[in-house]
């Protein structure tokens, strides 16, 4: 029929198609080269900078996990083993016993253990901890600040965008390389503070 007349039209479309195919490939190549030449990593994970953290309590509520993947970590190396622990007891507690009404922790996740006079050791029960940071605030206000909020990476889903990081008022949560997962004081191996105050 009029196939001869159609020929140039088809080849124009074909030319356009080929051009687009190559420009898509070139674009993808460009992105790859551009990003590989910049900093690349195997993966990144989320980290809390304890020096920035103000214990607002959003870690307990804003994590997509329930209970939150943020837990209280105890840097034993920094702990004073106080009898009157600001992280364990509610302010104004007179008789220092493990009675429920004395405890600051809403889920009773801190175990208080007598070591020797006058020292007590405090352990966090990770299964009960909800990451509210009340004990962290208390320990920081009255003690050495050995209790600190950190992301437990056995629980963290490592979301592409951390829901807590988005709502953290002090920008304490950032992406880091996996070897820098924890940034807290009182660990045996001392961490370098990458995120400046």
């Amino acid at each position, binding site marked *: 029929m009029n196939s001869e007349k159609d020929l140039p039209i088809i080849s124009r479309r074909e030319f356009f*198609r080929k051009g*687009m*195919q190559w420009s*898509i*490939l070139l674009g*993808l190549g460009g*992105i790859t080269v551009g*990003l590989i030449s*910049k*900093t*690349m*990593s*195997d*993966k*990144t994970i989320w980290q809390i900078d304890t020096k*920035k953290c*103000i214990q607002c309590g959003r870690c307990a509520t804003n994590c*997509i*996990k*329930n209970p939150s993947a943020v837990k209280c*970590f105890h*840097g*034993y*190396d*920094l*702990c*004073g*083993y*106080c009898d009157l622990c600001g992280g364990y007891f509610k302010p104004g507690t007179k008789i220092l016993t493990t009675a429920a009404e004395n405890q600051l922790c809403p889920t009773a996740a801190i175990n208080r253990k007598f*070591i*020797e006079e006058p*020292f007590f*050791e405090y*352990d966090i029960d990770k299964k009960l901890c909800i990451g509210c940071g009340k004990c962290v605030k208390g320990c*920081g206000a*009255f*003690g*050495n600040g050995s209790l600190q909020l*950190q992301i437990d*990476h*056995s*629980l*963290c*889903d*490592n*979301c*592409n*965008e951390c829901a807590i990081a*988005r709502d953290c*008022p*002090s920008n304490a949560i950032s*992406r880091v390389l*996996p070897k820098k*997962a*924890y940034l807290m*004081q*009182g*660990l*045996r191996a001392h961490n370098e503070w990458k995120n400046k*105050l």
Partner: protein
Amino acid sequence: MNKIKNIAVYLLFVMLTLQAFTLSAKNRFPKPEFESGHTQPVTITPSPRAIFFEYLDLVVLLASLTLISWFVMKKRSRKGVFGISVFVILYFGFYREGCICSIGAIQNITLALFKVNYTIPLTALLFFLIPIVYTLFVGRTFCAGVCPLGAIQDIVAFRPMPVKAWLEKVLGIIPFIYLAFAILYAATGTDFVICRYDPFVGFFRMDASFAMFLIGGLFLLIGVFIARPYCRFLCPYGALLNIVSRFSFKHMSITPAGCINCKLCENACPFGAIDMPVPHKEKEKTEVIVRRYVILSLVIPVLIIAGGFIASNFHENLAMVHHKVKLANEIMNNTNYGVIGKDAIEITAFKSSGQTTEQLYTEAAAIVDEFNTGSWFFGGFIGLVFGLTLIGLTVFKYHPDYSPNKANCLSCARCMKYCPVLPEKK
């Protein structure tokens, strides 16, 4: 006497510096030395998921993409596609809990391109690239069943109803607008909107707020009647693949040999992605075509500039999503995030950070500037999409057979079993 005073002042100074030091290190109580021989426990810091598993994700992605492409292109098997869909829902959905995904990777790429200090994970880059490359070669087989969001919608599409062509066209613009939003907010380092409003991640994690479950449930419920609503009318990665697939080297065909125009596959596609045959080529008058193209070529730049102009008028509203701009705004207007009686948490945090309001204002102003530039591109892009959609409506494509619309076809292989034509024996 004066000497003693000097010493006292010196001592006071030393004590004050010491005090300042102890305040930062918080060593109020010394570390005890136990007489009972108690050994201090070591703080356990659980290690993150090993990097090996990230590469396993990549291998699974590659394997399932290759397999599904083989099922669609060579085996023409809907069962195979369905099997992969179920596996993907189990692996990328429930096991990996919907993260990492190619849709979200758009934002990682954008952030890495615009922010120097962001190190992009290799997996995110490859999760973005691999499906696009596959789409360029064989069409949207990624959408068919390797995307967990697509797969979960695909298996609930029990009673698909056709959507009116004009409605399909209009709603089809939304993914591009969503893509523009996602890129604008990722480029400015504000937020990852795609991840934030992912409707199905709540199901995959079996744990979400009520609102998220409600939205996800609504999508699945609508998805029973209007197949894959998220993929067709929202997915920003789908928008990218839609473009790439138009120019793909190969694409699945409904019929294994020649189409006999039997009309059996006419209603087979739940996504309305089968183009009806155009029996006779009706050639319009040349002057009509020329006039239309002149008008459209004038309309597109006008639409781009108009879009950019309109969006840039709203750049301050767009920037308000950024937490720093919001904070600066709250402090400037003294509105305290609507909290009455005490300082809002953000204000408390800002006061304790030691930053001055002037520093905050300059930072916020720089971000608003970024949004000003970004909103021109944002609006211009949306204008371009509108213009190209208009051109697409006027372009006359001649084809004598029932054929899949390469842009919208999700390669789900449903139509194939409706075709009575037998493959040619060699």
